[in-house]
């Protein structure tokens, strides 16, 4: 460790290692330009929600930054709008979706990764077929089913059609297939039964895929709009996206700052999840390609 240091390569690269200065400047300028376009609108939303009551949000008198920053809008949105109810409803749908998706897609993905049982082909066909139909082309029929089950205006009705998805089964299957056969053989020789091998060998090896499924499910449940809009009727049952859109179009003419505060609040959970598990978000993108 502490032997003669013969000045090896510098650990920190110098700027000129990254390319010609002119090219670098152009690159960073472009990066900042795209940053302005992509994050700008959301950042503006955040800044406007922090503006005090005397500041303009719109019109030529509006400045970009709040001169008298205040959290008034956030206090008011909680006072005047049942935001907690919306949040609770959204979380309810998201959490039971994650639970059911995880349990059922790991089980099915595990069995599908196994050779040696009759009917795998048939199951495969059913899974593939179920992915062929865009949600929008079957939502009429789905609504009729939900109605027949008496689940209109019920959060369970929002959750039910998506309680397990073929795509997640495929993601889990791919992850389980990657577990080396030799390890399973060894576990079997040691007397580990099906359940033990699943629980203590396969599940821990597939934690990456499990995270991807969790993240995908959370985001799609949290951000979903069309299906809750169809199923839910009363404000007590609204999810956050539904509540926000209703807030904006309601005739009460809410202070726009309140709506902005509400949208900022709705992004926070996803943003936190993203910061914690960033790598797996990106993994989820490429696994989405299996969708075809």
């Amino acid at each position, binding site marked *: 460790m502490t032997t003669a240091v013969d000045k090896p390569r510098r650990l920190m690269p110098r700027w000129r290692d990254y390319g010609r200065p002119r090219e670098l400047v152009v690159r960073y300028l472009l990066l900042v330009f795209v940053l302005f376009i992509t994050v700008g609108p*959301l950042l503006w*939303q955040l800044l406007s929600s922090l503006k005090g009551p005397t500041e303009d949000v719109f019109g030529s008198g509006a400045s970009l930054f709040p001169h008298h920053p205040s959290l008034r809008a956030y206090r008011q949105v909680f006072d005047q709008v049942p935001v907690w109810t919306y949040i609770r409803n959204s979380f309810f749908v998201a959490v039971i979706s994650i639970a059911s998706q995880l349990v059922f897609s790991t089980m099915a993905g595990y069995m599908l990764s196994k050779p040696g049982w009759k009917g795998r082909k048939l199951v495969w066909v059913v899974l593939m077929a179920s992915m062929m139909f*865009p949600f929008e082309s079957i939502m009429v029929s789905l609504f009729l089913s939900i109605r027949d089950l008496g689940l209109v205006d019920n959060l369970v009705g929002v959750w039910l059609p998506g*309680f397990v998805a073929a795509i997640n089964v495929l993601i889990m299957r791919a992850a389980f297939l990657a577990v080396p056969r030799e390890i399973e053989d060894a576990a*079997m020789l040691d007397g580990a039964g099906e359940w033990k091998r699943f629980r203590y060998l396969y599940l821990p090896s597939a934690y990456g895929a499990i995270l991807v499924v969790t993240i995908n499910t959370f985001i799609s449940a949290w951000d979903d709009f069309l299906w809750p809009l169809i199923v839910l009727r009363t404000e007590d049952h609204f999810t956050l996206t539904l509540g926000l859109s209703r807030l904006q179009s309601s005739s009460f003419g809410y202070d726009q700052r309140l709506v*902005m505060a509400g949208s900022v609040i709705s992004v926070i959970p996803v943003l936190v999840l993203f910061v914690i598990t960033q790598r797996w978000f990106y993994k989820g*993108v490429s696994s989405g390609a299996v969708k075809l």
Partner: protein
Amino acid sequence: MAQHTLDQAPVPASPGAGALSPGTSPHRPPGRLRRALRSVVPGPTADAGGAALYRRWWLPWLWMAPAIVGTTVFGVFPFLNTLLVSFTDAKPLGGTYNLVGLDNYTRMFGDSDFWLATRNSVLYAVIVVPLMILLPLLLAILVEKNLPGIGFFRSAFYTPVLASSVVVGLSWQWLLSDQGLVNTWLEKAHIIREAIPFLSDSWLILLSAMGLTIWKGLGWYMIFYLAALGNVPKELHEAAAVDGAGSIRRFWHITVPGVRQSMMLVGTLTGIGSLRVFTEIYMLGGSTGGPGGADRTLPFYIRDVGLDPLTGNAGYGAAVSVALFALTLGLTLLAQRLTKEDES
């Protein structure tokens, strides 16, 4: 001990399987089907001499059951049911219904609002797909090089993907309103005298919604391309650069062929996605879908005609749903054919 097959292990094999102890079923010699199967799919026990098939044939089905039920009842059945319902005049809230034969379809083909919605959806795909194939690729090239702070930029470009369509829709709604930031700035810069009616002119609403879709999808497909770009050999770029090829020529002759397959995939995915657009129109054009419903897309129209609690006709909505599915299927087949031609 060496003869453990999948369900012969001494420990209860799975929940519910403990009732049968390993000794109760005598070892059966592998049948013809089993041997054939094993030769195709070598399993973990294929070399142990035991049967590769599960002795209790229902065991795998027990594990699969929830997924099979879910995908059948809420994936495959709804489509078949949609076909059936499209021949009826069922109401969204129930009650009696009659078989009406092909009435819904004849009505659909003569319905100018249906054609308008179809036009909007197709136009959406035609404009969004090429931009969605190209722009994220350029973005991916921009963030590909490992520069200081590049991780921050990548994450930042991804944030629109995280926010829900409703939130970004609200944001754009405020930006594009008559008093919004875009109009205010353009007025201040004396580019325009009067506010551009982004949110009241039906064409501008449609174009704004397309912009919103592209803006929200940029980060997602950027990551998608980033993975593909990693597979393009760096040496090709270097060799071409030595030969004096500029960056634009290298883009067309090295990068594009290298990520061609990804481009086809992105094209297919965004094409299908364009036909599914609903929230963008709802947020920018309002719950009517633009002035007089002029900006409604097919999903929007399905919801309007099929699911409205008072005036809705689920039968007609189902017929339009079938049209939407046919369009999606056509697009998928087209994309498959293009991909195949491209490969050969």
